């Protein structure tokens, strides 16, 4: 029987001592065995293993992105609970409640800002976390299940953001949700039905606000907590994080481990405290946007979806809606979900970008996409006019499938070039295409956010006549 067991077994002598003993650990453990036991015995800490590989503690391997994403989820739940106490989900009251929150409630504005910025940052960190896992091969066997859970959670994060976007009931919210939900209409056969179901009517209105509020505060967070539990549990079931390796190390290194307390827990605490400080400072300085009350008769010019959907909206300017809103996102999501089943080489797991050549190829893909994507947007805006050239064909073909075929052929050509010219292996080719497409998505989103002005025409960001950016 160890020293720890004895302490627990002996009741404290005083009344307060016994309460103290029942509420928590009596003193910090002094040896590794005690530290490991403390991890096992604690509800929160037992999400961690008792010992972790020293190498996974490396700051520049995980960037703490999973942890930061979880921290943001906790902040969002806490601030959300308080915001709920000052909010009525009806068109006549919602906007007034937000105004009252800003001017009439102690720390109301701070809570709202904190919720808003944490939610926006959550989209970014969840996305970066996905990239980190992909670049280090963390999606491959045996972690395929957890990759799928992760992609589903990314979708939930977007759903949480999107439903929350409507709640302030200002012009920004109203039209972003109108434009965003109208994209659903283009899903063949069931699109109109789904859209009406989600909106609770033909347009964004009182039923929509109630539907979105209900999804935002109950269904989405509850599902999220369940998936998060599953995600954390699977990390441990799959043997913890992938262990980082240098590209030149041919053999997987011998794994050294250290106790979770204090090595991992201390890092997590410092990281969390630093981020809470950053978020608080940011929320004190930068107010969350709020425009005039929603006016269903007055569409702003330009009307943009929430920023994380602007890449999608940019596609809508170039392709027939069925291609832009259904086929391309559907293919992309399918490819992302099935990634662990065709990108299966496990010998490079833990090496950032697979290999030294993989790093070069990633840079090449980044550079190529940074050049080609804006060039293609400009070409399509000013020169290409598929529907006029192929006027006798239905717009789905002339303005949808034909340009899509051109893009796909371009990707195939690039892939061939990399395969033959640079002798890339299969995993390096997948890496190349992945980096290319992700860069293209980021560029399209940036164009949508910063370079689209009235009438969705192209402008320099500093020339856009309207007063706000759509963030």
């Amino acid at each position, binding site marked *: 029987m160890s020293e720890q067991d004895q302490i627990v077994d002996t009741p404290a002598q005083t009344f307060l001592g016994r309460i103290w003993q029942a509420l928590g650990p009596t003193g910090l453990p002094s040896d590794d065995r005690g530290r490991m036991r403390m991890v096992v015995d604690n509800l929160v800490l037992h999400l961690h293993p008792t010992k972790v590989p020293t190498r996974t503690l490396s700051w520049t391997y995980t960037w703490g992105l999973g942890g930061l994403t979880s921290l943001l989820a906790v902040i969002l739940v806490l601030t959300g609970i308080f915001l709920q106490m000052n909010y009525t989900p009806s068109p006549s009251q919602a906007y007034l409640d937000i105004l009252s929150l800003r001017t009439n409630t102690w720390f109301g504005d701070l809570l709202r800002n904190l919720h808003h910025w944490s939610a926006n940052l959550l989209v970014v960190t969840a996305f970066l976390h996905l990239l980190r896992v992909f670049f280090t091969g963390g999606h491959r066997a045996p972690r395929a299940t957890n990759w799928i859970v992760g992609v589903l959670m990314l979708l939930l994060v977007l759903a949480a953001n999107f439903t929350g976007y409507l709640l302030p009931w200002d012009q920004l919210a109203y*039209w972003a949700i109108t434009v965003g939900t*109208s994209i659903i209409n283009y899903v063949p056969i069931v699109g109109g039905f789904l859209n009406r179901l989600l909106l609770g009517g033909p347009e964004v*209105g009182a039923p929509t606000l109630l539907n979105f509020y209900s999804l935002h505060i109950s269904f989405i967070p509850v599902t999220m907590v369940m998936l998060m539990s599953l995600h954390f549990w699977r990390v441990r079931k799959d043997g913890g994080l992938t262990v980082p390796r240098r590209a030149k190390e041919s053999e997987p290194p011998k794994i050294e481990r250290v106790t979770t307390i204090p090595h991992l827990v201390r890092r997590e605490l410092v990281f969390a405290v630093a981020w809470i400080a950053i978020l608080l400072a940011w929320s004190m300085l930068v107010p969350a946007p709020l425009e005039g009350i929603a006016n269903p*008769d007055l*569409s702003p010019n330009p009307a943009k979806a929430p920023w994380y959907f602007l890449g999608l909206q940019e596609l809508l300017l170039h392709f027939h809606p069925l291609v832009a809103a259904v086929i391309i996102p559907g293919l992309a999501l399918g490819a992302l979900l099935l990634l662990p089943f065709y990108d299966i080489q496990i010998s490079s797991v833990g090496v950032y970008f697979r290999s030294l050549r993989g790093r070069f190829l990633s840079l090449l893909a980044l550079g190529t996409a940074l050049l080609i994507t804006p060039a293609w947007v400009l070409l399509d805006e000013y020169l290409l006019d598929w529907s006029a050239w192929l006027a006798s064909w239905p717009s789905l073909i002339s303005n949808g499938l034909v340009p899509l075929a051109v893009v796909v052929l371009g990707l195939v050509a690039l892939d061939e070039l990399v395969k033959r010219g640079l002798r890339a292996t299969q995993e390096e080719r997948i890496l190349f295409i992945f980096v290319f497409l992700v860069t293209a998505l980021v560029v399209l989103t940036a164009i949508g956010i910063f370079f689209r002005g009235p009438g969705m025409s192209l402008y320099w960001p500093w020339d856009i006549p309207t007063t706000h950016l759509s963030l």
Partner: protein
Amino acid sequence: MQTTSLHTTIQTETGKPVSRRDALKTIWAALGGMVALEFTGLALAYMQPRLAQGEFGSVMSVGAVENFPNNSVTHIPNGRFYLVRLADGGFLAVYQRCTHLGCSVPWDQSQGMFVCPCHNSQFSPDGQVLNPPAPRPLDLFPITITDGMIEVDTGVSITRETAHLAQVVYP
């Protein structure tokens, strides 16, 4: 007969016997499937749009025919549509929602057309697309004219791929 088994078996067409246990399992699975379908149906029915009388979504009385001159476009804000009277005296109730991404389309009197502020789709007074990206003409609401009074049913919008004369209602 002494050898009669306690387990009843049924011969299937393929000749393979189905035990009572298997048959019951199948029935349970089918019942479970039906329950799942029922609850899906209930949820979908429950979430159907709820529309109130007298508001957008109901049948709205707009006024007398003679209040609207030929070649005019009148916005009916409560009904979220434009009452368009064409040059030949025919009526159309044009839904103000852009068929591209759902923005509200204002009427531009000086240009004589609807111009969507969101993505610059343009429509003629009868709703035809003059400039994409809108994929189809503006939707319509059914009009009934009785004793010179115009009523518009805003509950059902008519989606159309092309605009043609049969859609126009004459007093």
